[in-house]
């Protein structure tokens, strides 16, 4: 029966991404609604130890493509691994997380296998064997609804934090099945030589559950330090508006918005950000949004859950101290 659900489990430096763990919740939902077994694929080099973490998420089959060429992402090599795994388990649905990798490899897999594709889904439901999905479009100004057919392969990438990860199962069922991929048969391919980390001191906005973000009115790179202090207390990362990046206050890889990164953390704290439409496009999917701004009529307040009309320099340090006190009381 070709109706399995294949979860592509993305790992980075030996750690499974939370967004990949969350996919198992959707996979189980689809298995209940449409039948088929949940299978998983992990790709990388020297990733043997990850297999048990992955098995605990309850896949019936667990495929591992562990080979030196998979150390870094390579579009064609990873496409081949996913296509081979889909054939091995008889997959009808392939689930990926919407990450840089997921966005990059998903279209190739769908094109190669002649399947249907939906990228960055925020809602997935079954409809007589087909799948109804919702995904943000037009810079998040609209939600598009699509139907992927009941027949043929379907590739879905799911926006991080759309589903909660399932609890790990104490008695995993699946044995590891090594997946041999004939990489030499692929032809010309791009090869990653190395990955240069942008900032080893601080986390990236796409890797965290809490983001503290600043606009140009923060004033300078030094002044951003109060945002870094708050982010550190909350184990989060610092983001910035385009205006702050263009003014040289923060590096480009911290930019959130239409031409920056699109994020959907649990908590987004916007400090001195007015909320231009392009910025809202990058963060309106956040679960809870806090706006701190002196201008009571700033558009950011219409997107925010909680608002404080106050100078960020007065509030942010107090907020950091208060959070520190609270979190210290927890431990």
């Amino acid at each position, binding site marked *: 029966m070709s109706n399995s659900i294949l979860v592509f489990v993305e790992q980075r430096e030996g750690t499974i991404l939370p967004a990949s763990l969350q996919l198992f919740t959707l996979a189980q939902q689809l298995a209940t609604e449409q039948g088929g077994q949940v299978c998983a694929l992990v790709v990388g080099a020297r990733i043997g130890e990850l297999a048990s973490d992955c098995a605990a998420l309850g896949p019936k089959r667990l495929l591992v493509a562990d080979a030196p060429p998979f150390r870094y992402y390579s*579009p064609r090599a990873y496409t081949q691994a996913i296509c081979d795994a889909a054939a091995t388990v008889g997959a009808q649905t392939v689930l990926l997380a919407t*990450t*840089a990798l997921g*966005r990059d*490899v998903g*279209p*190739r897999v769908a*094109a190669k296998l002649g399947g249907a*594709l*939906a*990228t*960055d889904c925020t809602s997935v439901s079954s409809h007589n064997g087909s799948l109804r999905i919702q995904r*943000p*479009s*037009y810079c*998040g*100004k*609209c*939600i598009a*609804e*699509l*139907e*992927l057919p009941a027949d043929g392969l379907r590739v879905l990438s799911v926006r991080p934090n759309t589903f909660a990860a399932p609890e790990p199962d104490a008695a995993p069922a699946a044995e590891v099945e090594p997946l041999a991929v004939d990489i030499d048969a692929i*032809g010309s*391919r*791009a*090869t*990653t*030589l*190395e*990955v*240069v*980390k*942008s900032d080893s001191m601080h*986390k990236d906005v*796409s890797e965290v559950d809490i983001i503290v973000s600043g606009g140009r009115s923060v004033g300078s790179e030094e002044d951003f330090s109060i945002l870094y202090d708050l982010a550190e207390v*909350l184990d989060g990362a610092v983001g910035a508006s385009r205006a702050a990046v263009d003014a040289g206050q923060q590096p480009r890889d911290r930019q959130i918005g239409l*031409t920056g990164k699109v994020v959907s953390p*649990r*908590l987004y704290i916007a400090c001195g950000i007015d909320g231009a*439409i*392009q910025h809202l496009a990058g963060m*309106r999917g956040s*679960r*809870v949004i806090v706006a701190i701004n002196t201008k009571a009529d700033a558009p950011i307040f*219409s997107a*925010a*859950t*909680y*608002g*404080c*009309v*106050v100078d960020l320099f007065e*509030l942010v340090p*107090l*907020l950091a*101290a*208060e*959070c520190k006190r*609270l979190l210290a009381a927890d431990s």
Partner: protein
Amino acid sequence: MRILVVVKQVPDSRASLSVLADGSGLDKAGVRFVCNPFDEFAAEQAVQLREKRSDVDEIVAVTIGPAEALQTLRTTLAMGADRGIQIVVDESVMFDELYLARAIAAAVTRDEQGYDLVLCGKQGIDNDAGDLGPALAEYLGLPHIGAIVELVVNESGDRANAKRQIEGGLEVVETGLPVLLTCEKGLVEPRYPSLPNIMKAKKKPVETVDAKTLPGMAEAAPRATFIGLSPPPAREACTIIEGTPEEMAKELVRVLREEAKVI
């Protein structure tokens, strides 16, 4: 060296958009349509390669969309592309980028010469998907590098190095040509076409072709079905927290923990 640039027409990012009452699509009244900003990076990169090298023979721009997309193709020609291919499709297929990629592949493979570089935007700001580039690479049988912020093509024009933005860093990637690249912000700054170049672009050759008449496309249809568009779910009204900064800090932390349960 031959370069293909893929461009698409999209609503201006600054436009406030609304959905037609029946949810069948976007209300286009009063909305300005422009070249997708990421595609402008692709066009600019192509033109800069020609300015820096002596071996760029031809830059071809291709667009896919409703008939009005011709305007965007003309802009790309004004930036420096030599000729254009306009693939006309019904608006109803625009959300399925696999279909668009198939049509583009069908159009450009009619030409046996092929391309050494295919440059696309990282994603269209209409679908916010970024499916077109990688899918086109697959249909063309090419390697690709997605979301590049830096590109160096070697002197002999057979290898390229690129840096690609990923979470928390940059991938340094090497590839042989031909290759497809999708362009991210930071790669280049797109130029504004000069008035003489805008005038010249009007005379540059453009082939207009209906997607259905392309090889293998007569029976092709999108694999996904468009159901409708809706406005994003309204967020609950913002709760304004008042008081002195000290009181605000205490209350905000309390609601984030007790009501929202996020810290």
